[in-house]
C-alpha cells in the first residue's frame, strides 16, 4: 500500500471558536489509488467537505489541521509551505464544486479561467495553455470549444457550466480529482452525463474522491465508500457491498431514507432526529441518540472502526485486493 495516490491517516481538523476548539474532522483515514474512486457519504455537517478541504488545505480562516498526515504520491502535504502547497493545488489535485455558476468567476472568460493557473504553475506558455484548454473543453463534451472558450460563464447553460468547471479542474491533468457534490445542483438529465465524464477521467487513471449524500451517485461509479457521521468514519466498504448490505445502523438508516426510482415497495424511513451539534457531542457512539438499536453500552463506550467478521461478509470483498470492510459499531462488528 506504499504506492497509494492519496493516503490520509488519522486526520483531525478543528474550528477555532470563541468558546474553544471544535473538532469537526476526527481521526479520518482513507486511501485512494490511481484510477479508483472513493465516495464519502454523509449528511450535511458530517465533516465530509472539511475533510477534503483539509487535504487541499483550503480551509476557512478559523479552521486548523490539528494532526494526522496527508500523503499525496508519498509526499506529506500537511507540513508543506504554503508556496509549495499552491503548486499542488490545481496542478496535482483538481477540485470540482457543487454549483458551477457560483464556482466560476463571472468577470473572466473561460479562456482566462482555464489557462491562468497553467501559467501560475509554470506548466506551459500562453499559446500552449490555450491549446490545452480547448482540448480539455472538447474532452468534457463542450461543442465548438474554440468558440466557447471566449464566452463568460453566465452565457452557458447549467450543464455546460458544470462541464466547463470540470474542464477547469482537469486542464492541468491532476492525478487526483476531488468532486464535491458535483451533481447536486444540476438536472437529472445532466447528472448522468457529468458522472459519465468523471468515469472517463477515472478510466484514464485519475483518482477520484466523490463527496456526496446521494447513494445512487456513489454506486454509479465509485469503487469504495466511507460513511461519515459527526466528523468520524463510521463505516468503510466497497460501494456495492455497502449498498447491498449496509452494516452500521447509520448507513442502514441513510440507505433506507434514500428515494430510489422504482423503489416503491421499499418504505421510506427517514432517520429520526438531526445530526448532533459537535459542541455537544453525545458521549459514547455519537449516533446513539438516533439509533434504534442503541443500548446503554452505546452511551458509554466510544466506538472504533473494527473489521467485520468473516462469516457475515459477502463474497465480494475478497474479489479486489485492498478492499476493506469496517464499521464503528460493536453490534455489527460482533455479528456481521
Amino acid at each position: 500500500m506504499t504506492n497509494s495516490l492519496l493516503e490520509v491517516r488519522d486526520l483531525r481538523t478543528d474550528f477555532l471558536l470563541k468558546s474553544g476548539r471544535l473538532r469537526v474532522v476526527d481521526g479520518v483515514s482513507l486511501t485512494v489509488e490511481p484510477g479508483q474512486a472513493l465516495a464519502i457519504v454523509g449528511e450535511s455537517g458530517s465533516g465530509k467537505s472539511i475533510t477534503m478541504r483539509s487535504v487541499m488545505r483550503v480551509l476557512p480562516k478559523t479552521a486548523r489541521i490539528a494532526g494526522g498526515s496527508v500523503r499525496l504520491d508519498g509526499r506529506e502535504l500537511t507540513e508543506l509551505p504554503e508556496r509549495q502547497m499552491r503548486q499542488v493545488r490545481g496542478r496535482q489535485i483538481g477540485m470540482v464544486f457543487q454549483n458551477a455558476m457560483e464556482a466560476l468567476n463571472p468577470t473572466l472568460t473561460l479562456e482566462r479561467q482555464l489557462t491562468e493557473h497553467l501559467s501560475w504553475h509554470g506548466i506551459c506558455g500562453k499559446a500552449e495553455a490555450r491549446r490545452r484548454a480547448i482540448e480539455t473543453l472538447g474532452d468534457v463534451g463542450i461543442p465548438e470549444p474554440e468558440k466557447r472558450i471566449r464566452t463568460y460563464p453566465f452565457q452557458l447553460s447549467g450543464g455546460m457550466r458544470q462541464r466547463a468547471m470540470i474542464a477547469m479542474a482537469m486542464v492541468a491533468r491532476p492525478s487526483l480529482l476531488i468532486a464535491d457534490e458535483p451533481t447536486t445542483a444540476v438536472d437529472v438529465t445532466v447528472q448522468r452525463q457529468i458522472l459519465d465524464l468523471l468515469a472517463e477521467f477515472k478510466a484514464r487513471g485519475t483518482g477520484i474522491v466523490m463527496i456526496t449524500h446521494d447513494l445512487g451517485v456513489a454506486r454509479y461509479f465509485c469503487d469504495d465508500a466511507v460513511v461519515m457521521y459527526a466528523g468520524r468514519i463510521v463505516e468503510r466498504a466497497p460501494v456495492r457491498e455497502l449498498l447491498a448490505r449496509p452494516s452500521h445502523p447509520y448507513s442502514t438508516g441513510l440507505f433506507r431514507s434514500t428515494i430510489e426510482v422504482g423503489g416503491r415497495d421499499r418504505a421510506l424511513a427517514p432517520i429520526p432526529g438531526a445530526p448532533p451539534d459537535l459542541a455537544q457531542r453525545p458521549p459514547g457512539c455519537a449516533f446513539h441518540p438516533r439509533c434504534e438499536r442503541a443500548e446503554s453500552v452505546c452511551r458509554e463506550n466510544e466506538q472504533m472502526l473494527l473489521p467485520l467478521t468473516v462469516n457475515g461478509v459477502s463474497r465480494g470483498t475478497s474479489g479486489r485486493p485492498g478492499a476493506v470492510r469496517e464499521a464503528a459499531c460493536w453490534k455489527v462488528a460482533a455479528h456481521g
Partner: protein
Amino acid sequence: MALAEATEPTGSIEAVKARGHWAGAWARFRANRLAFISLIFCGLLVITAIAAPWIAPYHFTETDPTARLAPIGADGHWLGTDMLGRDLFSRMIYGLRTALFVAFGAELASLVVAIVIGLSAGYIGGRVDQGLMGITDVMYAFPSYLFAIVLVTVMGRSLWAVMLAIGISSWVTQARLVRAQVLSVKEREYIEAARSMGASGTTISFRYILPNAVGPLLVTTSFAIPAAIGAEAGLALLGLGVQPPTPSWGSMISEGTSYILAAPHLLLFPAGMFALTLLAFTWVGDGVRDAFDANGESR
C-alpha cells in the same frame, strides 16, 4: 440561478457571442434616453474643458476697459463682460475647466485610496481591518467643510488644495463600500475555487475580488462627481476655492450677486450652467445605477 437559466440565450452559438460583463449594463444605459443624452452633454462639457484655450475667445484674465459690464450680445462679447471687462463666455469655459479638473481629480484620487484601503481591510481582515476602519471612522466623523477650510488655509488656495479637500471627504464612504463588497465577494465559491486552483493572495484580490466588487463603486463614483462639482463651487462661494483670477463658477456666482440688477447675466449664466452641469452628471449617475441594478447582481 433559475432566473439566469430562463433568460439565457439557448440558441445558436452566434447568439452567445463573447460579450463582456459590462456589455449588458452598457446596453441598458443606452436604452435610457435621458441618461444617454446627459452622457453626451457631459462628454461635450469635458471636451470643452480640455480644449478651453482653443475654444474660449479670450484668456480669463484679459480685460476690455472699453466694455465693462457689457450686456449680452455686446460687440465681441456675445455673453457680455463682467465688472472688469472680462469676457463672461471665456470665463465660464475656464470655470468649467476648474470644476471638472477638481471634481475628476478628487474622485480619481479618492477612488484609488478607497480601493487600496477597502481592499486591504476587507481581504486581510483582523487587526489591519480594525485599524483601517478606525481611521476611516474618525475621518467620517470629521465635518468635511471644516476639514476643507483647514486644508485650504494651510495649503493656500491652490487647485490641488481644493482637490485634496474634496477628495478627502469623499474617499471615506467609498472605502467603506469597497470593504463591504470585498467581504461579501470573499465568501463566494469562486474565490474558494480560485484558491483550490492554486491562486496566490494577490491574484485572488486583484483578479477575482476586485473586478467583482467594483460594480457598485462605479455607481457611487458617478454620483460623487456632481457632488464634487457642487462642493468646488460651494467652497469658492465661501471664498475658499481656487485663487482668483482663476475662474470658478462658485466665485462667479458670488460676484454676480453684487450686480444682480445692473447685469443679471453675470449671475444667471454661471448659475444656469452650473445647475445644468450638475443635473446632467446626476442623470448620468442615475442611468449608471439603473443599468447595474437590472444586472441581476443577485445572480
